[in-house]
């Protein structure tokens, strides 16, 4: 049985559009009408299935076996040919999908979570109600991190922690959360004066509860879009770091395939380069289309469209 206060709160001060069934229906309806967005969703789903196939051991398990000749052309045995060591390029490309999703998911989830929490804290304590030092400290930290050229910073963190399998993940999480943090902070500053938040405070709910139960759910539209963008950025960054030798340690990724291909291209062998580039391009295209569609669907300014 619901309490009278809760009933009052939800009826008198409805949260944002996404909170309600009607809002969710509208978002999904807009998403369904966005053909490019749907294409993105299909692409991402296909890649997700590929990575699950790798995870469960059904696909790409022979990525490290060097049973072919050097730089073999496409054949029945090696659909996309082999690399310098005689490893199957197709298997390596498929296995790299898992690497991409593993890094993309870990980095996007954790950086978004970190950005949401710190952004919410900063936004909440921006007023005179709390203490401004929290907001000031978090803003200062964001400013410091943002002032360092992104790739330089990520490469430096990855370099410093090299040898540790999660070095690259940490490097990206440490740098990616700030954008989410800024957006969430602004959103929290906006919604904290809304009636449902004021009511929560009026009935004496503690700040963490208000933030987690009432404030953060209302930033979900930002978090979803930011997470999808962080996913894309994480995959791209992984490719760059792996290309520089600072990426995955004991696995294979498209970045590593591209790094290998620098020597192969010189010798006139393009299979590694084209395969890794194509896979990367298609997945990033899919994610970008999906992220754009999500952004449009959640944008209240386009609600009437």
């Amino acid at each position, binding site marked *: 049985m619901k309490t009278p206060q809760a009933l009052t709160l939800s009826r008198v001060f409805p949260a944002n559009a996404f909170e309600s069934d009607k809002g969710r229906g509208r978002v999904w309806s807009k998403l369904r009408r966005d053909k490019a967005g749907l294409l993105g969703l299909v692409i991402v789903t296909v890649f997700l299935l590929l990575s699950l196939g790798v995870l469960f051991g059904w696909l790409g398990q022979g990525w490290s076996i060097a049973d072919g000749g050097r730089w073999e052309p496409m054949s029945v045995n090696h659909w996309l040919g082999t690399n310098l060591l005689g490893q199957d390029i197709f298997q390596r490309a498929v296995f790299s999908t898992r690497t991409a999703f593993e890094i993309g998911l870990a980095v996007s989830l954790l950086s978004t979570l970190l950005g949401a929490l710190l952004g919410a804290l900063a936004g909440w304590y921006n007023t005179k109600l709390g203490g401004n030092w929290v907001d000031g400290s978090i803003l200062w930290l964001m400013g410091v991190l943002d002032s360092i050229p992104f790739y330089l910073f990520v490469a430096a963190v990855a370099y410093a922690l090299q040898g540790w399998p999660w070095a690259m993940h940490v490097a990206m999480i440490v740098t990616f959360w700030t954008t989410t943090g800024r957006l969430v902070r602004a959103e929290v500053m906006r919604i904290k004066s809304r009636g449902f938040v004021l009511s929560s405070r009026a009935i004496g709910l503690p700040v963490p509860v208000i933030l987690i139960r009432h404030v953060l759910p209302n930033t979900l539209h930002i978090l979803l879009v930011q997470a999808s963008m962080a996913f894309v950025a994480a995959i791209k960054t992984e490719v760059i770091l792996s290309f520089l*030798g600072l990426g995955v340690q004991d696995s294979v990724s498209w970045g*590593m395939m591209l790094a290998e291909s620098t020597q192969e291209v010189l010798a006139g062998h393009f299979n590694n380069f084209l395969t890794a580039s194509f896979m990367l391009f298609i997945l990033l295209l899919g994610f970008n289309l999906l992220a754009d569609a999500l952004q449009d669907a959640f944008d209240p300014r386009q609600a009437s469209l």
Partner: protein
Amino acid sequence: MKNLSFRVPLLVLLLALGACNGGDQSTSTEISHSVYRHSMDGAPNNLDPARSSNIYANFLVVNLYDTLYRYKYLARPYQLEPNLAENLPEISADGLTYTIRIKPDVYFIDDLAFPESKGRLVSAQDFVYSIKRHFDPQTRAQGAWLWQNRIVGLDDWKANGSDYKQEITGLRALDGRTIQIQLISPYPQLVHTLTQGFSAIVPREAVEYYGRELAIHPVGSGPYRLLSFNTAGAVMVRNSDFRQEPFSLENEGYDPASQSRYGLEHLEGLTPPFMDRIEVEFIGEDAARWNAFIAGELDFVKAPVSQFDQVLESRNPLVLKPELAENFHFQATLESGFVHTDFNMDDPRIGYHPNPETNARNKALRCAISKAFDWEKRNEIFYYGIGQVFPGIIPPVAPEFNPDQDRTSIIRDLKAARELLKSHGWTADKLPDLEIGFTSSVTERQMFEQFRSFMADIGYPRGKIHPLTFASYGDYAQAYLNREVMLMTIGWTMDYPDAENTIQLFYGPNATPGSNTANYNNEEFNRLFRDSSTMLASPARTEMYRKMNQIVIEDCVTISGISRKMILLWNRDIAMLPDRSFLGGHFFRFAGPGKANFKNRQEE
């Protein structure tokens, strides 16, 4: 008539212009062929001889400064040749005292460091001073190891505060031109050390005048002087005061049968250095270096392995593609060193163990790993199949190399490897986790993956072989010097053509942080090394070297080895025989214009 009168002067004018153009061409030919444009795949770290610790620096230093000795330009195997020294040293009967006279009338280049900017005479005292610098902590020198614990009084001089006024018993200038070196015990490699850039002769005035800037402001008496130097390249111009020593093919060890194709004969009797200007470009990126060479921006390149398919018509025999052969000379030469993968004998999981039974099992494991290693495939994939695989630690370029040595240790034998594992109780679940150290470059990672696939063939689980990557070679070296790496692949370039230089890599007292990265310690090996280290080259010494080589092979301390082959290409317009080995940069002075261009110059 009017028309004709107009056309005649026009024709004359055109002819005159044509003649002018022809004159310009001959001038540009002369200019272009008095310049030699060299490429290097790395940059010098420092041009101060005491700190010139990489091969790129050594290349330039031996041209900017004088060393007492060098190797003959064309003789192979390498033979010592006096450079600034007048003759080979006089060595006392006990092999402890070396007396060397330097050539008269050799001057340092004119420089602000000298009074009135006028270069002064090079003296024996300069040599003494230059060696002393290595033992002065303020120099932060990197070549002291060559003479450490070798010369009487030199280490004490350092311990007593490196006072340059203090004389050293074992390192003296008897007069302006005579050097005397007294050794603590015989050191047959001493003269070889005097060919290296580390031993180059520096005037004290320049050290005091430039201080740390000596790194970029060399003041020597070599065949060239520095015009400019930065991270992209260096330009050297002929030292017009360099001593007049006519070039003699015979004296330099010319072999007409193998070297006549390089067109060096027309240089006979001329005085080196032949080129007015040497431009050296430091291009680390293979593709960029190769493209610059093909575009005609460079006269010399070491072809990247990735280009071998495009460069070579056939591998056996090595034949250059006809379109390249038209324009370029080529030489395939073995490196003066080798690549080997050492087991860390200090690691009880794979090396020495206090329990004799475990110790024996570890040895069996090492031997099984060695037998599973496929040298043929390693050579084929990473060295285009033209590297030379050899058993043990005496590489083919060393005079003591034994071409008839038993090759069992480098032939893959999976059956024997599996039997070894089985007979010593090594099963998949009992095998230790192997950590292979390397710097994170594409090639090294691929080598690791290949190693793992080799081991998979004897049932070593893939999940038990792990990469231990390092961001830079410095970090990697630090780790293996701290004995933190289980298996490490190392390339060693010999400092002089004597197998002692590679054998010492396994001498017990040289264990890390010394050069014995395997931390190998075998009493019999150590005894043989001690006994041979004071012997002059002789069949008896060679026999001892070979015995040490066999001990290392039988103990399965290292998976060794391969000497890489380099394909060197250079412009046919340049008459020279380049060298990336012991002679190194000394060959610059002998690089001259090709015969055709030389004729042009003579006619002009």
